[in-house]
């Protein structure tokens, strides 16, 4: 019963928190750029407006894929709140990621096609790192279940500092922030217009946006696990991490996928492996 209540809390709170984070993100970014920026609630206004627009699609696959993306993202957050298995949560999240890509590929538009291919490269980059992070958690707690993390007496961060850095790498890619935003360039009139999102519009773009909020919450939740013993430090860790994300986002130019793959597979995997060796030895 408790689990069910937690899941419902997660499903409701997910988009709210995710939307607020998106709003804050824009405010802080504006502050970096000496602008005033939109109100914090702006992301909600945007989505509400999108939901009210006329439905326009290239074909039915986009409708299907947008919905499945949202549902999978929500289910993965629900599983997270139900203290489920980290790998299962990750794979359910991957359902959404795959459908987003497939929906983009269903439209015969060069922009969304290229965006879809690049999104796959992003998945290729972050997936192994995330799996190794979960393996690290398993080695520390003896279980892939999140419930085991709460029983720790020492924060995970103490045992997995390098894996946390690697996770940060993976998260920047997952959140599609610069320098890894090449599958959905933030700004119009760039080499890729809107990449994987080009052909999603109106209410369906709103679904994709809400799904993205869920994903943001899932990612922040993963980070939160690294300081599970103290709520204040957990909050500090999250704030610090996200602030760093925003800083990186604003100071970096977009790179190429080749740069990303090589960087992440060498540096991200390298850090993960070194940290795992400590854990196996310890």
């Amino acid at each position, binding site marked *: 019963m408790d689990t069910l209540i937690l899941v419902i809390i997660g499903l409701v709170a997910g988009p709210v928190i995710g939307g607020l984070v998106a709003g804050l993100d824009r405010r802080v970014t504006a502050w970096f750029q000496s602008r005033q920026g939109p109100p914090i609630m702006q992301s909600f206004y945007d989505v509400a407006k999108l939901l009210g627009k*006329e*439905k*326009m*699609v*290239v*074909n*039915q*696959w986009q*409708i*299907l*894929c947008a*919905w*499945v993306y949202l*549902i*999978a993202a929500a*289910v993965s957050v629900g599983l997270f709140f139900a203290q*489920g*298995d*980290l*790998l*299962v949560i990750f*794979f*359910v999240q*991957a*359902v959404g990621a*795959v459908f987003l890509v*497939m929906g*983009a*590929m*269903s439209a*015969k*538009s*060069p*922009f969304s*096609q290229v965006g*879809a*291919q690049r999104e*796959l490269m992003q*998945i*290729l*980059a972050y*997936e*192994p790192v995330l*799996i*190794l992070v979960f*393996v690290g958690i398993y*080695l520390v707690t*003896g*279980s*892939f*279940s999140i419930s085991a993390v709460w029983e720790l007496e020492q924060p995970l961060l103490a045992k997995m500092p390098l894996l946390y850095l690697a996770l940060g790498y993976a998260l920047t890619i997952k959140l599609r922030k610069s320098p890894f935003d090449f599958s959905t360039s933030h700004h119009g009139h760039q080499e890729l*217009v809107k990449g994987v999102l*080009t*052909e999603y519009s109106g209410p369906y773009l709103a679904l994709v946006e809400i799904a993205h909020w869920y994903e943001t919450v899932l990612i922040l939740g993963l980070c939160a696990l690294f300081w599970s013993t103290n709520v204040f430090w957990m909050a500090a860790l999250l704030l610090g991490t996200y602030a760093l994300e925003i800083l990186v986002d604003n100071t970096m130019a977009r790179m190429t996928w080749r740069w990303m*793959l090589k960087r992440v597979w060498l540096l991200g*995997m390298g850090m993960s*492996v070194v940290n*795992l*060796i400590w854990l*196996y030895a310890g």
Partner: protein
Amino acid sequence: MSNLLFLLILLPAVAAAVCYFVRSSAVRTLTVLATGAILTAASLALLGQETQPLTVGSVLGIPSDFLIAVLDFALLGVIFMYGVKHKSLLIQGFTLAQAALLAWFELIMVKSAEVPAFAVDQISLIMVLVVSIIGSLICIFAIPYMKEHEEHLHLKKSRQPQFFFFMLLFLGAMNGLVLSNNILWLYFFFEVTTLCSFMLIGHDRTEIAIKNSVRALWMNSLGGLSFVIGMMLVYSKVGTLDISAILAGGPQGALMVTGVGFLCLAGFTKAAQVPFQSWLLGAMVAPTPVSALLHSSTMVKAGVYVVLRFAPAYSGTLLSDGVAVCGAFTFLACAALCIGQSNGKKILAYSTVSNLGLIICCAGLNTPLAITAAVLLILFHAISKSLLFLCVGTIEQAIGSRDIEDMRGLYAKFPRTATITIIGILTMLLPPFGVLMGKWMALEAGAANIYVIIMLAMGSALTMVYWARWGGLLMASREAGAAREKQAALISLPLMTLCLGAVVLSLASPWIYNSMLAPMFNAPPFALSFGSLNAATGSFAVVPLFLALGLGALYAVKAASGFRKVKIVAPYLSGSNAGEEGTYIGPMNGPVPFSAGNMYLGELFAEGKLTPVFNALAVALIVLMLGGAL
């Protein structure tokens, strides 16, 4: 029980003979259909039987063990003849060596003692189901497929009798292989599958088909030789041919474990592990039902089965770690090679080898969790992969190409085939389906070994890429009122059955685990509650996930089905769209066509560059593995 076993093994052989000698196509169709139905029924009936070892006394007054020995040498003779015919010294050498060692083994080493020829346990039960049901469906699919296939070839005399002879014989041999308890019988059936696959790969008799079949034959003869050596080493220590006795004894010293190592090597060749992957890739020149049969339910599963069967005999040894690392390496290497491919059949082939590597890795990890993962992967991979092969075969006959770039937008013309293919791809790749569940278990079991888990993590990501882009490019717009797609009943039946099977059996997986897998272990890895598999290390909520994602997907399908009421627009092209799809109005007011393709990452994952490197690494790992047994 004995009658069922004979039915499962001998009926396909008899039916094969009927197909060969009666040249009427109606009789052939009926024979194949009836055999499929009876095999399915018999394999299901076997589920409800008491399982005890079965001794085969004599057949027509000849002691059955002697009969098998004679057939062994006859078989080696036939293979040697083909070696001579195709001037392959490798085949001749391996076969002669096998015959010499086998003669020494049977005449001098083995003290004749009655050993139960057959035994049924959980693993062989599941294998029998896979072989009998999926194998039969593939044979049924082959009936209309081969008719059309031969129409393209303009043969004077149909070669279908020979084709179905070997297809059906194959099923019998596989059932025999997985049910054997006498290691010499196992070896006999192992060799029969080698011969059948050689004949089927070379069926079309084109230059390339013959070349590839010869390569398959020499690689598998090497496997056969390795099997004989392994058998002799094991026997010299344990002194029995009884597999269940060998397994019950566990690892017994360096000599015996080395013997088991050679048996595993034989399994590697048959399962086309790197560096032996080239024979399976070559096998795709054969008609599609052959590829489906070789890849999903029979040939390669025989190799995996041997490695898995002998897992208790090397548990806790360095050999076991070696097997796990070799398997994980194949999983990663073939997933990487697969990224660079655009040939649909080649993608399936690499993905098969990759998955077999994962299964072998699980056998090497050798914990109850890993063995469970291996068996579930065998089952679900067989269903999804055979489905995908049959889909590619259907698509190939429809569009005349097996290149996935040519399948772009397949939904527009062949909505039914495209949808089934997409579902097949999703069942290979995503939760809550069985293959992913097996992969999940493999990852959790592999987390204990740093080498294994790193390779599994990287391989898993690569797998995601090559499936997702294939699934995506099949989707496309379809004009309102376009003509419906027609599918022959015998094409449709196997496709729909396999498609449904992949989904429904995934949903039933907790109960499959509980009734068929859990009894294998003293300490089963999972407890079942509310349709989820729970363990201290993690849990997979199969039924809740099916409910959440399934209902969600149904809602999404319903939302999508009303799309004709929504405004349909052309995609954005940075300019005004021209009338036809795929062009826009460019400079000089003329239409400019464009096209988009997948990224195959040629500079990173080029097959030609990577294969020699992977082969060398794999040889090193295999040497390491065999050395680990000492």
